[in-house]
């Protein structure tokens, strides 16, 4: 049994009086790929954001590598070097060149040697087919290229765990493939542990070891992926998969 890297226990989140996450319990083992699926507004994004300290929670606990996370900004700041995150809107820093976007974390946050990180950054860029864009500014890139850079920027910190929040949702259809391939490679070849929120069912099926299906802030089921897509446990998930037309 692989080592447990992340565990969420009895987590509740409220926006004021609105109860948005209900008693969330799950864990992720090293090398495992978990996808969060569910209809819009089911709380997938909110949940994944709590795992990087971008959203707070009112009850329950998150454990990372066996240690309970103390939910204050200082502690999160440390942890974020180990928990990488990529967003729907890429959010490269428009004032920095591609290479400087990538170097910022490793050099300023981790204090690593600039030359060493730089050659690594060029390698990573080459892997995603963007070597020649190192000195470009983000606005000179297409959406798909930006998203690939955003993934490289997160990987340059050597995270142990990656969160992908609908990373293809604002891309043109023909850009989606390239980004998904990178994530797939990361899962299959580098054995990266990850949680992926996505609306791409084919992709989810290809990549996921396990599916958490959410609705209205509840985890309705946690099912191994091969079973989820052929024989989901709940009617709601069945309905959801039918509606996804895949």
């Amino acid at each position, binding site marked *: 049994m692989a080592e447990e890297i992340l565990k969420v226990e009895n987590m509740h989140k409220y926006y004021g009086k609105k109860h948005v996450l209900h008693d969330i319990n799950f864990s992720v083992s090293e090398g495992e790929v978990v996808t969060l699926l569910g209809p819009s507004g089911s709380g997938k994004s909110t949940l994944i954001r709590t795992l*990087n300290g971008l959203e707070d929670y009112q009850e329950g606990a998150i454990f990372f590598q066996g240690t309970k996370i103390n939910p204050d900004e200082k502690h999160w*700041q440390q942890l974020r*070097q180990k928990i990488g995150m990529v967003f729907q809107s890429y*959010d*490269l820093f428009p*004032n920095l060149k591609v290479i400087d976007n990538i170097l910022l974390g490793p050099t300023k946050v981790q204090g690593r040697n600039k030359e060493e990180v730089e050659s690594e950054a060029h390698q990573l860029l080459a892997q995603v087919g963007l070597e020649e864009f190192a000195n470009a500014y983000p606005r000179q890139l297409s959406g798909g290229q930006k998203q690939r850079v955003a993934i490289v920027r997160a990987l340059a910190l050597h995270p142990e765990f990656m969160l992908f929040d609908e990373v293809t949702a604002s891309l043109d259809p023909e850009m989606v493939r390239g980004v998904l391939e990178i994530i797939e490679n990361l899962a299959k070849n580098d054995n990266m542990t990850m949680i992926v929120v996505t609306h791409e069912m084919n992709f989810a099926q290809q990549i996921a070891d396990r599916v958490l299906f959410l609705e209205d802030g509840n985890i309705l089921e946690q099912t191994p992926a091969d079973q989820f897509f052929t024989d989901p446990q709940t009617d709601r998930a069945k309905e959801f998969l039918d509606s996804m037309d895949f």
Partner: protein
Amino acid sequence: MSWPIIQQSLPMFAKGFELTLWLSFIGILGSIIVGIVVSMVRLFKIPVLHQLASIYVEVSRNTPLLIQLFFLYYAFPVIGIKLGAELSGIIGLIFLGGSYMAEGFSGGFNGVPKSQVESGKAIGLSRFQLARFVIFPQGFSKSVPALAANIIFLIKETSIFTVIAIPELTNTALDLIGMYYRSNEYLFVLVVAYAIILIPLSVILTYLEKRVRYGTFGN
């Protein structure tokens, strides 16, 4: 209009011109410094100072410069602080301009999208690193239009210095009118003098705005 009268007045206007420029320069520089400090105090929500900064901005923005100058020049000596006219003027201008600049910079900082801040946090940046590498570079370029408007505004506000008898441009004109009863000529020179300062400056600032506008990184 009589040209000889205009000609004769030019040396006096030249002195006023110089003083207006000098007072504006010091006032604007001071305002920018105060504005940066106040907007940073607000950005980092530094306790106590943060509340003080808000009080300062409200008081400064919601009282006329005229009244601020009266306070500095006429009321402060009553409590034993004698500043003199020029110093009162400069302090008054910085007191006023500081809050306008602070609002301008804060507007720029707040205009940096939340998602930029989050992606900065996601790579582990501390609050100060986030400010240094993400919020300042983007926020400052967003606040250039406000900065430009404030610079022009503050130069024009120096005309109010006349009420505490600082011999800048407006004061010079009013003095000459009082002495020689020729308002057409002196007011004409006054308008031209302000235009000589403000029109080129306005052109330069507009150019600068275009150059640094947010989103043009990489052009």
